């Protein structure tokens, strides 16, 4: 930790209150990590050992076998692939479409602007179950022969991409329109007087200035869409087509017979989001607070 190397001299003398606070925080932090550490501990132990000695026991052997077994047995790579096919287009499309709406709302004073933004923002706050029944029917009724494997919107990656984009663009449009409103008006005004098209104002002037907000939203969206469980659970019927998070739910019943393997499997699914989080923590946190109306 770099923070321990900070010169001690400049700090205030150690007060008992501070020590107490650190004891409290360290204790709470440890308690917070306990369920995850327990999962890691379970995942690292062979089933034969834990079933003989019990789970709370000194380990004779720690191996990564459960991880490799879970990965291979359940064909996880395939499900990670499914997630990638859904999440990448969904994140990109959401950012593109919501920035378009945000640009329209933030840069032009048309009469319906506020109402439009209200519709988007409110839509994103609804619980998913409010719309799922008719959506499910709509997906079953939409025939797309040749476009998706199932021939319908139902049970297809396209269907999931569409609902992710529709649902998440509410939140992103709200955040981006606020962000765009804070940009100086003179920038686009000058370009408009010089005869630049609206598209250029958006693509070449406004969008590059929104990079910090877009980066924050991209991080947040990737984590949310990756973590989606509900849409895939209802709108995908073939286990094969499921993204990783909901596939795990199927797998734990079908393939995994011991808890150690389930532990390993679930930890594996958490790795990508953890990597994104540790790499882009700043973006993640600022994204959450940019539009803190998100449930």
């Amino acid at each position: 930790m770099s923070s321990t190397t900070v010169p001690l001299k400049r700090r205030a003398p150690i007060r008992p209150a501070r020590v107490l606070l650190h004891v409290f925080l360290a204790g709470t932090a440890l308690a917070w990590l306990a369920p995850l550490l327990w999962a890691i501990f379970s995942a690292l132990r062979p089933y034969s050992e834990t079933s003989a000695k019990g789970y709370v026991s000194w380990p004779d052997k720690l191996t990564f076998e459960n991880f490799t077994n879970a990965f291979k047995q359940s064909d996880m790579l395939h499900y990670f692939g499914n997630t990638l096919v859904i999440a990448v287009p969904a994140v990109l499309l959401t950012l593109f479409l919501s920035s378009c709406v945000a640009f329209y709302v933030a840069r032009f004073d048309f009469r319906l602007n506020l109402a439009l933004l209200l519709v988007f923002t409110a839509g994103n706050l609804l619980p998913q179950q409010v719309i799922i029944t008719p959506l499910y029917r709509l997906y079953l009724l939409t025939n797309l022969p040749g476009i998706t494997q199932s021939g319908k919107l139902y049970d297809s990656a396209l269907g999931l991409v569409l609902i992710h984009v529709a649902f998440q663009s509410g939140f992103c449009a709200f955040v981006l329109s606020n962000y765009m409103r804070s940009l100086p008006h003179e920038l686009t005004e000058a370009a408009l007087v010089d005869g630049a098209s609206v598209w250029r104002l958006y693509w070449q002037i406004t969008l590059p200035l929104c990079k910090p907000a877009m980066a924050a939203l991209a991080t947040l969206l990737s984590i949310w869409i990756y973590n989606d469980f509900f849409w895939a659970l209802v709108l995908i019927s073939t286990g094969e087509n499921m993204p990783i998070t909901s596939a795990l739910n199927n797998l734990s019943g079908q393939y995994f017979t011991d808890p150690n393997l389930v532990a390993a499997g679930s930890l594996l699914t958490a790795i990508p989001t953890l990597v994104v989080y540790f790499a882009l923590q700043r973006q993640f946190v600022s994204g959450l607070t940019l539009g803190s109306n998100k449930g």
Partner: protein
Amino acid sequence: MTTDTTTNTPEAAAVPPPGASPARTRATHGHRRLLTRRDRFTLALMAGVPTILHVLLVWVTAIASIFLAFTTWDGIGFDSIKWVGLDNFKQLFNDNPQFWPAVQHNVIWFVVLILIPTPLGLFLAVQLDKRIRFSRVYQTVFFLPVVISMACIGFVWQLVYNPDTGLINSIIGANKPGHYIDWIGDPHLNLWAVLIAASWRHTGYMMILYLAGLKSVDPSLREASALDGANEWQTFKSVIFPTLRPTNTVVLVVTIIEALRAFDLVFVFNKGAQGTELLSILVTNNIIGESSRIGYGSAIAVVLLVISLAVIIPYLIATFRKERRA
């Protein structure tokens, strides 16, 4: 943490500098005159395509839910849709043994989240805002559950609660046949067991929101309070907490919405079996269960919709009114 984006809370970003508004209206009128026909077409597409997608998949379906709630439909062909008036609701309120427990659990979910993880998150945020050592490490630990999927959290906590092999029973010695404490199976315990896992996640989320709120508190307020000789608690109570009002509103709304949305965790735990029913689970069971009763499922969804809108609409009106004034 102090990136330039962190300070841009929606409220802050939405407020342009005080003197700018007259110039802005003039400028936008100028804009309108300068728009060519092609520009107008581009703009229509830019606003139209996302709006159609969003309205069709979110709002048209929400309205369809309302319509279907007054009908029965087996889902095969549109001509089998039959108008039944309030029958679905009558059945739901009077005959469904799961409905009132579900409503009650949603309420309990909210009460627990607002009484335990929310103050704890605020407390942690206040402590971590003091620029203490290892602040980043602590923050990372408490945020961690927010990043992991709810489904995954469900699996992890099952390992803790499992009657034979779980952490709790192994430690307290309740893992022998006849002495089981069935945290997930017992209808008197399972709701609380799930709520501990939900609170574990919610605390970190609340901490993020409060940390952001605290960052925007004017440091001179603290100084003034210290000069007046106020102690830490007095400063917090009379100076800091009142300035957190916008954050508190957001926290309240987020917590209500979270309580209404609760689903993944419970579904992974025990599919909302006895003791953990929630409105969201009842709706979903009508779709993925054996019995696909569309009208009936929609009626439950409408209850959920009405409660949600009762929260969302006042909140958005307040938020947007503030923007307009600015």
